[in-house]
């Protein structure tokens, strides 16, 4: 035994009854293969994965079926072999109860693996390793599902200490405990791999001292490679910041990354998953799930991602009065909107709830400012002030009181004598703040675009000043001609006049007929002189038009899907992606050529679109103002000013 490490402590915290004994009585069981698997595309903090398969495709176990989209996204994989039934909105393990796009598989029972390629870790550069982890779908299994490859970048001053989080402080949950007991070697191997990638100097494995077997198993596996430390049992000792504090004395402030302080923290499950991904080439398609609560036989199961929770709980024998599932522990867990939501990578436990086990919260009473919450808060916040301002929707003040330092551990609500759902208020406040930030960004972008448009209009006006006179003459002539035609020049903007009304209807009818005719007869259109960009745009729009049933119209009646909208169907998404890529390339080329403009702050995608619009403008400027090659098509409207 080594000399005892000096441990630190954090303020606050609570000691709820552990309720862990029941589910560690039996070893981990493998959950049977379900007939149907629902793999949500959105399973990490970043954007949803982009689907790589289509309905009807056959897939193999472990095959990548969704590709990472952006830095905070990871891939998703087929948990078993079978056929893709559909890709579309499905129930989601999310408290909102909203549907989210998922890939639904019908399993064929063959469990046929795709080809797995173990990685030669020593011979692969770290960047490549990180890409491999991303494509293996590795996210943090401690609950936050943050992509692990992002956390595996050494900080500015290198990473000194790698902390493996085996604290598992929440009541009821025992999956990490069982993992450490049964698969200690794998966990340790994963830790060693991470140490290699991070170039860390030491590994500390923190385990709450109420798990003696896990401690023993990990100590046995660790030998001299890592130090296994028993930490005092106090919720939330497993919170990354709290564990780092306890083990190293370092406090990582909000908004800073722990790597900046030379520490990084991973869950034991994550370590094991990394071991599997690199040593066996096996992507993250299953995880350990504690099934406990209102069930006859609480136990840990290894469950394929995408299995319906109802089927998992059924294994443990739910009691008849079970009325809800909770994903996660009783302190931080989320209530599930139904029994049929799928197990996702974040599902460390499913607690079956009943009115007696988790009774409905007592009615909220007014806060009496007793300060119990502040004493319990491990982040040293003043939860009562956060509550006061969140409740009053005074989010600015709430942020002044460090709303975003709250780790949503629930200690404050646990001790609150007034039974206030404090964490809900903070979550509410946080999501409002985020929404406002989104709005603010949108407003800023809109302002820029508005100013840019005004600027452009001015420029165009002055450029065309010379031509204006001639054009005016032409326009006047056209207008006069139009006035003589059967459709007089009343504008459509005067609906009060019955004549105009009728005329409008006629116009619409005509336009409709035209549009349909156009559609029927393949395109002999006047697009020949359009630029490639415009044509690409039109192609995209055409494509969309051809697919009336696609996109969000089915999902929730919302608008069209840009690439970021998860509701986009794969085919459309693919096409769009191609288009966007093209546009991007174009835009970049254009940017290189053109002088920098006040649109630089926009995203690449938006810039591409603006570029397209610009191109169109120039095009339009080149066209005669009243081209009218097919006189009847152009309704007699005022010439553009």
């Amino acid at each position, binding site marked *: 035994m080594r000399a005892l490490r000096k441990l630190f402590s954090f303020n606050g915290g609570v000691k709820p009854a552990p309720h862990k004994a029941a589910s560690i009585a039996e070893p981990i069981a493998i959950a049977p293969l379900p007939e149907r698997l629902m793999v949500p595309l959105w399973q990490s903090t970043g954007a949803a994965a982009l689907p790589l398969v289509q309905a009807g495709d056959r897939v193999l176990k472990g095959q990548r079926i969704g590709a990472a989209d952006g830095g905070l996204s990871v891939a998703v994989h087929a948990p078993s072999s079978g056929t893709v039934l559909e890709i579309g909105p499905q129930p989601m393990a999310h408290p909102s109860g909203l549907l989210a796009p998922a890939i639904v598989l019908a399993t064929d029972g063959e469990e046929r693996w795709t080809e797995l390629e173990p990685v030669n870790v020593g011979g692969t550069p770290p960047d490549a390793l990180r890409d491999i982890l991303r494509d293996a779908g590795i996210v943090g299994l401690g609950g936050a599902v943050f992509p692990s490859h992002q956390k595996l970048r050494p900080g500015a001053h290198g990473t000194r200490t790698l902390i493996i989080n085996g604290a598992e402080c929440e009541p009821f949950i025992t999956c990490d405990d069982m993992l450490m007991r049964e698969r200690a070697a794998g966990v340790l191997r994963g830790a060693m791999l991470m140490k290699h990638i991070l170039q860390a100097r030491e590994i500390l494995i923190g385990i709450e001292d109420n798990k003696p077997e896990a401690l023993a198993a990990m100590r046995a596996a660790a030998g001299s490679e890592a130090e296994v430390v028993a930490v005092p049992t106090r919720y939330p000792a497993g919170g990354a910041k709290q564990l780092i504090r306890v083990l190293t004395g370092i406090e990582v402030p909000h908004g800073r990354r722990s790597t900046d302080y030379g520490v990084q923290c991973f869950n034991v499950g994550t370590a094991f998953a990394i071991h599997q991904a690199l040593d066996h080439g096996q992507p993250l398609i299953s995880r350990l799930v504690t099934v406990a609560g209102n069930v006859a036989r609480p136990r840990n199961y290894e469950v394929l991602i995408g299995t319906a929770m109802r089927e998992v709980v059924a294994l443990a024998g739910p009691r008849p009065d079970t009325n809800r599932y909770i994903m996660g522990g009783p302190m931080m867990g989320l209530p599930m909107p139904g029994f049929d939501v799928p197990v996702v990578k974040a599902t460390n436990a499913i607690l079956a709830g009943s009115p007696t086990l988790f009774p409905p919260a007592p009615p909220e009473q007014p806060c009496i400012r007793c300060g119990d919450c502040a004493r319990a808060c491990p982040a040293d916040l003043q939860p009562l002030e956060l509550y006061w301002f969140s409740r009053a929707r005074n989010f600015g003040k709430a942020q002044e009181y460090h709303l975003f330092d709250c780790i949503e551990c629930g200690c404050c609500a646990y001790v609150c004598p007034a039974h206030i759902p404090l964490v809900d208020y903070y979550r509410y406040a946080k999501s409002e703040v985020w929404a406002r930030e989104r709005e603010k960004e949108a407003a800023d972008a809109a302002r820029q675009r508005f100013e840019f448009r005004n600027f452009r209009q001015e420029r165009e006006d002055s450029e065309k000043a010379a031509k204006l006179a001639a054009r005016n003459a032409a326009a006047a002539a056209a207008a006069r001609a139009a006035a003589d035609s059967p459709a007089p020049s009343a504008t459509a903007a005067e609906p009060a006049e019955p004549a105009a009304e009728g005329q409008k209807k006629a116009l619409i009818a005509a336009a409709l007929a035209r549009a349909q005719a156009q559609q029927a007869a393949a395109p002999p259109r006047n697009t020949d002189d359009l630029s490639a960009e415009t044509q690409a745009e039109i192609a995209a729009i055409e494509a969309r038009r051809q697919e009336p049933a696609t996109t969000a119209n089915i999902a929730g009646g919302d608008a069209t899907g840009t690439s970021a909208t998860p509701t986009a169907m794969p085919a459309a998404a693919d096409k769009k992606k191609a288009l966007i890529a093209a546009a991007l390339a174009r835009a970049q080329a254009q940017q290189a050529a053109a002088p920098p403009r006040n649109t630089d702050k926009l995203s690449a995608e938006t810039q591409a679109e603006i570029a*397209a619009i610009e191109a169109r403008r120039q095009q339009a400027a080149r066209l005669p103002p009243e081209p009218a090659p097919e006189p009847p098509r152009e309704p007699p409207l005022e010439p553009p000013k």
Partner: protein
Amino acid sequence: MLSALLVMTGIALAIGAALGYAAVRFRVEGDPLVEKIDAILPQTQCGQCGYPGCKPYAQAIAGGEAEINQCPPGGEEGIRKLADLLGREVKPLSEEHGVEKPKAVAVIDEQTCIGCTLCIQACPVDAIVGAAKQMHTVVEKLCTGCELCVAPCPVDCISMVTQAETVQTWKWRYPVVPLRVEGKRAA
């Protein structure tokens, strides 16, 4: 009587001269307030406030010509922020300027669009793409929902579609406070 006139004359002369001089000498230049107000406005540029855009409305507020409750897209939250900034009382949104609506984007019915470009010209933020006689499309991300393109369309093919929530944009609800008894308001 004379002494009174003399004393007040002295005071008045001194002050009148000082103020008159100061008034010309130290003119206040520019108004950073407008920028601050403009930063709060939602930049929808819809003109519902009665001004041709957010900036003019901001100038009107700063000049004391406009009330702070005329911008429906900014809604209650916007009014609150303005009241905060200007130290005024929060008021409900002025009814004559419209009502607060959930955010919507314009969608062009592409079957019907005749490509007249009128909406393109109407859109203050260049959110519509398309050329003359090509059917047009709204770039959803850029659309601020100002509805300015709806009226000019000669074939009424533009409709405003409210944006549905997704799992990512979902907001936690305000926890309900079950304190109020329904129907038992003070008479």
